[in-house]
């Protein structure tokens, strides 16, 4: 047997699953109708739907300020941003649906608490500055998470993420611009900005996920390119890029232990209150109930509207068919 034949033999003997993993390792994309291990399918449904749910629930804390935005320019920017989140949720639900689950089923999982969404959206937006802090910090942290996903192994997810990342490029700027304006404004405005930073800083760090030691899915996710860097690495990256931005606009990161570490070339930072994180994840954050009530309310309240559209479409179709006959 030649060397080449031997290799082919070996390839044939690989199980379907090993071939699948080999394709991913070679940076090939997996497409909806391709064979895939059940675990791959389930993990992707879980992650993509969680991501979609986060976009949709994430509309609520910012939507809270649409009617009260302080200027017309800010109002249209905020409206467009929250609308983008609806769009991103839609792209991600669609990507998820390629794996054989419907959007209605995904909603059902969200509404019954079976599916999770990013816990940061369970914090209240109490002042206008929170619109700045969310755009700057929350979107900033999200981008760090999302950019590597543009290259993830599942084709529909990667394509959705490319669109999401392209559209989101204005979101963080929108938030940071609000912060700049506040930080450079009256003492009252600056205080509002600092207060928002104080409240959103730690939840933003938590948003990047539990520490590597506690994270359950990491290894498998790395292999499937659902994740390219560990939570702790992402967190460090976020801190290192955000601290100078805060300094630039004269705001103080609310962490007494924050210190530049020359040797590591990174910032050392204080302990994160993981008890708080788990409390919110488990449904006991300040706004978990409000957020779910709003989502369920919109869905149930809209049922008669969706039904009407469906009934109308059917009537129209049958009228058309009658004409043809």
């Amino acid at each position, binding site marked *: 047997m030649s060397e080449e034949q031997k290799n082919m033999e070996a390839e044939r003997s690989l199980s379907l699953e090993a071939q699948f993993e080999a394709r991913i390792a070679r940076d090939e994309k997996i497409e909806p109708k391709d064979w895939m291990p059940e675990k791959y399918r389930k993990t992707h449904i879980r992650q993509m739907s969680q991501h979609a749910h986060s976009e*949709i629930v994430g*509309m*609520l804390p910012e*939507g809270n300020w*649409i*009617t*009260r*935005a*302080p*200027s*017309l*320019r*800010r*109002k*249209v920017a905020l*409206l*467009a941003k*929250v*609308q983008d989140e*609806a*769009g991103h*949720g*839609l792209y991600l*639900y669609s990507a998820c649906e390629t794996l054989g689950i419907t959007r209605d089923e995904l909603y059902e999982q969200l509404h019954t608490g079976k599916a999770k969404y990013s816990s940061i959206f369970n914090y209240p937006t109490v002042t*206008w500055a929170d619109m700045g802090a969310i755009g700057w910090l929350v979107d900033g942290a999200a981008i760090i998470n999302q950019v590597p996903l543009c290259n993830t192994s599942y084709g529909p997810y990667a394509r959705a993420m490319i669109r999401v990342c392209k559209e989101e490029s204005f979101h963080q700027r929108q938030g940071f611009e*609000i912060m700049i*304006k*506040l930080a450079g*404004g*009256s003492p*009252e*405005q600056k205080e509002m900005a600092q207060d928002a930073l104080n409240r959103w800083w730690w939840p933003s760090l938590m948003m990047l996920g539990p520490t590597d030691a506690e994270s359950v899915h990491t290894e498998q996710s790395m292999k499937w390119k659902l994740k390219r860097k560990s939570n702790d690495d992402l967190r460090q990256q976020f801190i290192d890029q955000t601290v100078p931005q805060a300094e630039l606009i004269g705001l103080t990161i609310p962490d007494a232990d924050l210190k530049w570490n020359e040797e590591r070339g990174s910032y050392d930072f204080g302990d994160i209150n993981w008890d708080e994180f788990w409390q919110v994840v488990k449904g006991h954050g300040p706004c978990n109930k409000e957020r779910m009530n*709003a989502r369920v*309310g*919109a869905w149930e*309240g*809209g*049922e*008669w*509207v*969706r*039904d*009407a*559209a*469906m*009934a*109308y479409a059917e*009537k129209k179709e049958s009228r058309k068919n009658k004409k043809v006959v």
Partner: protein
Amino acid sequence: MNTNLYKYILGIADNSLILGQRMGALTGHGPSLETDIACTNISLDLFGQVRSYYQYAAKIKGDNTTEDDIAFLRKEREYLNVLLVEQPDTHFGFTIARQFLFDTYHFLFLEELEKSHDITLSAIAKKSIKEVSYHRRFSSDWVKRLGDGTAVSHEKIQEAINVLWTYTDELFHQTEADKVMVKENIGVDVTTLKDQYYTNVETILNEATLEVPESKWFQKGGKEGIHTEHLGYLLSDLQYMQRTYPNMEW
């Protein structure tokens, strides 16, 4: 300052402001993601129009007036929108009916405003009419879906049309500023739009298997700054930041 022109512009722009504010408030709460996105688009179109009108009005007023001064710092009696656009979103049927009853008017109005001898107003109308043409299609389609959908939806949209009908006649009332502007070939004579309006509305309502309300009792006052009780609450949200933190930039 040309007070009549200034007031005339506000009379147009305030409709878009208040309706945009109502529509924008629904973002995140729509019956489906797709519908949610569509409603936000309408809101964004309206706010875009508002900014063009107010920027023009601010120039006319002078004294470093800004679009935001006009949008946020008037008193309730100084807002000149029609009563129709400030009515609340009791349910999605009201959102659609309000939009439909306004869009039908808005389109006819802009067609005429495009002929205005005021080049700024004419330009704004020219740009807006494309947006409003789409709004009209969107809201008319939804009136038909709800009217000719299920028994439940039929009842709900009929209810909304019946309740809001009383605010339609005001669309065709002429204010003093209107009359002056019509004479100067700047403004639209809204009285001439009335027949076409009711014809267009009835066509869609018929297609939607809905009844045209027979009531001839109409409410008015918005154009003179006398509003329904709903507007005050809308304004307290709208103006909250500017009132709480006066003279600041955002």
